[in-house]
């Protein structure tokens, strides 16, 4: 019996090792090899990394990803926080509202893409008629660089604001009431008491929500693939779509692996941070 708990862990370790750990190690190896038309032509040292560093499209994709993630997560956090404060306590139809709001983030991101293809379409969509009825002309939203970028950010906001809202709401509802009551008795207004009490108490939960969303957003792929395939031009080309094209359209596995290893290095820092805030929040809400 003494060794059995370790035996219980073995199948899980094998399963996760095979599809997560081993591929990551294999990526590092592939990033040091030269592939042409999908065939391995042996080691090339750091050539792939050098090529990636000198590839301006790669840097454009990094910049676009950073803008996309920053803008989307910032808007989602502010909207989610605003909504959660609006609802905060006991509310009728609470269940209905929750059900309605989880739908955008639960359905497959591919379906989210389809839904917004249908909304944005210049000939059969709804966004154009809405814009023109507001006197804003009828832009073909996905066909122009600036508007296409904002359009895919808007889709991200539509899809993921509910996540921030639900997490923050759960956080708000588990806050201790005494400090808020005390502040109110002391005559603090709602704005003061929000910044002095609610926000600091909410911080652990808020951090979890933001960090998890950040990591997830960096990997955004599905909606972009369905909506714009990274276009027009490179206006919505994220690191994920660029790496995908490099690997599966141009069969440059080595170069794609070099990009992904670089991305992994960056993400690991973010993930280590995520692990810390998640564990801390779990401890604090459990206590």
């Amino acid at each position, binding site marked *: *019996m003494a060794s*059995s*708990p370790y035996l219980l*862990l073995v*199948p899980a370790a094998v*399963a*996760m090792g095979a*599809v*997560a750990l081993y591929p990551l190690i294999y*990526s590092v190896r*592939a990033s040091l090899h030269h592939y042409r038309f*999908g065939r391995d032509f042996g080691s090339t040292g750091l050539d792939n990394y050098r090529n990636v560093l000198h590839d301006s499209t790669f840097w454009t994709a990094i910049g676009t990803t950073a803008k996309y993630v920053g803008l989307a997560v910032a808007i989602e956090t502010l909207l989610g926080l605003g*909504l959660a404060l*609006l*609802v905060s306590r006991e*509310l009728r139809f609470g*269940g209905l509202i929750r*059900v*309605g*709001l989880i*739908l*955008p983030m*639960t*359905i*497959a991101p*591919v*379906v989210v*893409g*389809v*839904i917004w*293809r*249908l*909304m944005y379409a210049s000939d*059969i969509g709804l966004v154009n*008629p809405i814009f023109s009825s507001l006197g804003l002309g009828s832009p073909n939203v996905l066909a122009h660089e600036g508007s296409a970028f904002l359009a895919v950010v808007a889709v991200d906001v*539509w899809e993921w604001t*509910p996540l921030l809202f*639900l997490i923050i709401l*759960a956080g708000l509802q588990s806050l201790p009431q005494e400090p808020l009551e005390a502040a*109110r008795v002391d005559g603090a207004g*709602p704005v003061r008491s929000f910044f002095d009490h609610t926000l600091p108490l909410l911080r652990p939960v808020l951090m*979890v*929500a933001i960090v998890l969303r950040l*990591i997830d957003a*960096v990997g955004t*792929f*599905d909606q972009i*693939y*369905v909506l714009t395939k990274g276009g027009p031009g490179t206006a919505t080309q994220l690191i*994920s779509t660029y*790496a*995908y094209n490099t690997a*599966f359209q141009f069969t440059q596995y080595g170069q794609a692996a070099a990009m*992904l290893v670089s991305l992994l290095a960056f*993400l690991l820092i973010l*993930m280590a941070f*995520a*692990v810390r805030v*998640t564990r801390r929040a*779990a401890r604090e809400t459990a206590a």
Partner: protein
Amino acid sequence: MKRHLPRGLTYAGLAAVLLIALFPFWWMLVTSLKRPIDIFAGVSLVPQHITFSNYSRLFGPYHMGQFLRNSLVVVSVAVAISLVVGTLAAYALARFRLRLGLNRNALVVTLLVRMLPPILLVVPIYIVLGKLSLLNSKIGLIIVYTGLNTSFVIWMMQSFLEEIPRDIEEAAMVDGDSRLTALRRVVLPLAAPGLAATAIFSVIATYNDFLIALSLTSTPNAQTVPVGVSTLIGKIQIEWGPMAAAGVVGALPIIFFALMVQRHFVRGLTMGAVK
């Protein structure tokens, strides 16, 4: 109780938010029920002549039935295996003091695996599965999904199992049950709601995956629903009707499952950090 805003205003604001969240679904449904000529005949928020021809084309020349069958097989097998494998590991982590700080470190590893964006994994997995001749096969997808989902199961089940008092299974073991029998007869029934929620979250996540299935499959023999939906786009002329119908069919099972677990939603999405 603080009330900074009048009730009416709060409800009006929420109604607007719900409308924005749900209206695009309605637009997809309406488009899927329109005849092609009506789709192009200007804005109308209800179908003038309801037709199911988009759906019959979807299941005919567009292989949707095949995609659904593939998804059903791949998702159910992968989720079933990962539930068994993951729950056993979660039990070990929740109930035993392990050496090497495993209780803590193993959870950190599962969390990291869970957070990895699929794009980081698909290129090496594609190369390796190619060498094993497992590309474009349901088995290949099952292997990948099983491994990835195991991390989620461990994380969720560990937190559910820790909430079950130890005394109960210890009593069962005093009565002569082995540990695994006690787990099966006593602990799992108590953890059933958590297990069900974990299973449903796993189904949703696995069914929804697009990038992995897109990279590893190439024909309707193995392609899953999201990949099937995407094949309706990207042609020179988009078939709006069947595409909308595909979106509806792709979303329906998930909407059904989401309603079942909505109470556990926050916990599932934050890896149990917020309950």
